[in-house]
């Protein structure tokens, strides 16, 4: 399993925001979903997931509520705030710029 540090610096926020963008999720589901949607390539360690979630919440991009969940007990479910949606757009933007730059470099170098 790849270590969290293998994730490119700063992409964790983007992954979390993107994952939650469509449907509110609790921490466990966020981790699972990132893993599944990336075709088991990306795995987020709990050690970085929860601090990241808390940080995004403190920054006002996520909102958290305790709700009944599929786990059979109430869980802390995160959803995007309006500011979070804007932040996601910004992150996507900068990601596409970064990735195309990297792509360009690989192709031409």
């Amino acid at each position, binding site marked *: 399993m790849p270590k969290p540090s293998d994730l490119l610096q700063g992409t964790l926020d983007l992954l979390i925001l993107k994952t939650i963008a469509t449907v509110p999720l*609790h*921490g*466990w589901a966020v*981790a699972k979903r990132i893993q599944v949607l990336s075709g088991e390539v990306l795995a987020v*360690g*709990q*050690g970085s997931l*929860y*601090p990241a979630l*808390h*940080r995004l*919440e*403190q*920054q*006002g*991009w996520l*909102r958290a509520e305790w709700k009944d969940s599929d*786990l059979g*007990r109430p*869980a*802390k479910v995160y959803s995007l*705030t*309006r*500011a979070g949606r804007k932040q996601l757009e910004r992150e996507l933007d900068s990601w596409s710029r970064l990735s195309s730059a990297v792509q360009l470099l690989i192709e031409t170098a």
Partner: protein
Amino acid sequence: MRVYRVFMHRLRSIFRKSWADTELQHEIEIHLEQLVKEAVASGMNESEARVVARRRFGPLEKTKEECRDTRRVDVIDNFTRDVRYALRMICSKRSFSVPALLTLALGIGANIAIFSVVNAVLIRSLPYAEPEKLVGVSNSAVFSGQVVNDWPLSLEMYAAYNEQAQSFADFGVWTPGAAAVTGAGDPEQVAIVSMTHGVLPALGVQPYSGRCFSSADEVPGAQKAVILSYKYWQRRFGGSESVLGQLVLIDFVSYQVVGVMPRSFEFLNVDPDVFLAQSVASGAPGSEDADNFGVARLKPGVSLAQANQDLARVLSIWGAGNAQWGQALEELRVKPNIHPLKQDVVGDVGAILKILMGALLIVLLLVCANVANLVLVRAQARGEEFAIRTALGAGRGRIAGQLIVESLALATLGGAGGLALAYAALRVLVTHGPKTLPRISEIGLDSTSILFALACSLLSGTLFGFIAVLKSGLSSRPQNARGSSPSVEQLHAQNALVVAQVALALVLLVGAGLLVRSFIALSAVKPGFTHPEQIQTIRLFIPEAQIREPERVAQMQADILHEVAAIPGVTAAGFGTALPLELEYHNGNPVSVNGKTPVGRIPPNRTIKYVSPGLFAALGTRLIAGRDFAWSDLVSPHRVAIISENMARENWDDPPDALGERIRIGTDGPWSVIVGVAENVYDDGVDRQPPGIVYFPGLRRTVAFALRSSRAGTEGLLKEITEKIRAVDSSLPLANIRTLGDLNRLAMERRAFALVLLGIAAVMAVTLSIIGVYGVLAYAVAQRRKEISIRVAVGAGPRTIKSLFLRQGLILACLGGAIGLVSARGVSHWMASLLFGVRPGDPLTYGVSCAVIVAATLAASYVPSRRASSLDPIEALRSD
């Protein structure tokens, strides 16, 4: 919205910390549970699964801590912990905290006290709406080469300004004075202000009850109107509501009470009992006398310069149509002088207070330097503690932060102490301070003073906190945990602080020294009267309504003089229209000298006094040439005069040459022959040039008696005098019963006040720098015990050791002294306005101040040096 959410989160994190922690715990448990379920699903048993789950999760506590860190509450957390720690330190380390707190309380307290005075006197000096629009209106003129900026207006000028000026929303003139209130009750003399109807609206005040004056009150012949001050209304009328409409006899003329002013109302810097409506009649006697002060409220958007231009236009139109004044305006170069009203109220006290404020800020800097020193010493002693904490993972920023918090806690506590001290000091000041200080009764601690106290505390705390952090060596490298010698940097810092202290103290010493020298010079001036404390004065007014014929008035005054002069113990007596220093009764007129004043020119202004024979003897004013007046001069057709020495020298070089020459008031009065020359009388106070005075023999309705007696000021003498006067006429109101000494003291009081406070500041400064020098050397001795012991062990004598430290003290003192001398020379010209008979660069003052400061620092270094020389080397070496 986002800001709000973030803010609420932080709040919740701070105040519901335990709740946030439980939440975090739950969240992570759920995750762990899922991991366990997954493991079980892959075929492990329960306990195995748990172990695997924990392993897969990773370091649990670290994750939790990282989550907590995102809440960013550590800053606040650390802060509260630091404050608690600092308070505990202040309570336990008394040898450090008590001197620090005491010096802080003294320094900050002194600053708060003076700031409160400045605040009351300077900042809040105009308790009226929109005070920045209030202006004083006077004229500037040039009298015999001297520019006078506060030449009052005549009523005729007022009428012209009032009619044609376009810059004023409201405008009026007022003049202070005294009047007798008779009728029911004892006759009494009250302080009055006569004013035109524009004055109160200009100030923007409404009466408490009744009405303000109107222009109808000013028409000659109309019922005269009076407005009472709240204080007088309470005192004379017991606050009775029915006072409105009542008639009151003031100077034997009936006035109708039309209003009462509010209790809080203050009229500039005078404190009148009643306000009289000024009757304005052009051409009436007195309407050309320039003795009215103007006050006006500028229209919105009008600047001082515009208003001055506007009035200059009015003045030139008025002058052109006025035969009597037209020429004078030209010759005296009369120009309107509109100035901020604050100037009239505050006067020259502003300069004194600013100097004091500066002096006390220096004291506060000294205090900061001393406390910084103490904090440095403590930081050194705590090197071990800091080292251990650094080893345990505390960052340098964290430790520096704690030092700052400790400093701030110290400063805040010191400031609280200072506030208490200032409160006490102000109570003393209000009861014992100079009565001539404007608005002295207003002085007290208010919210502005308390804010100032807070600012003082926080600023000084930050200042010495930062000095301590920067110089404790904390910023450069971690200290080792074993006790060590102080870093060179710290020693340098301490030495620099001491040098700065010595320099600042010297500046204050020089300032105080210059004031002392001025005071001595002032005391040496012969004021033109002797032993003022033995001169009893009483002012007496004989109204026309009571005695019509001037001859009878003269007879009555002569009778009274005769009676009181016979009182046992009275050695001399006389009377005159104005006694020395009685500025409010001064009367000036241009006086021409036969053959000296060019024809067609307006002669210089002189003070005119009408005096009785014997007044010079009673006052102790020496006659330099000629003779005193005789009673026969009063009735003789030959007019005679006595002039002051400076006026005689101005015209004839040698005073006796003036005898027999002729002078007259104005340019067309009758001539009088000079029969005597009297020594100069310093009427405006000994620190001003004595005015030229012309004395005429003669009688006026209001005169002041002067009696020389060793019993002056005693109840017994007063009673006898009153009895004698009442025996002549029982209805005469008496006023200004005081000794000339009181008046003299009053004149010196502001200077004395400045001297005392600056003296206190200087003493504090010297004491603080002694403490500073002592502290640094004592610390150096303690730190260098090992070195000293080794020196002694290899043969250094006590004298060598002693001189080692004495030399250090001397070097510090000389360095500080040199810097202080240069700075003192730089700042001393600021106090030039307070100096008298001494130049700001007076070498004696500088020399003595230097000697004092060097002696003080040497004394301060002697004790530690002796301790060093008497050190027992064996014990010292063994103990380490």
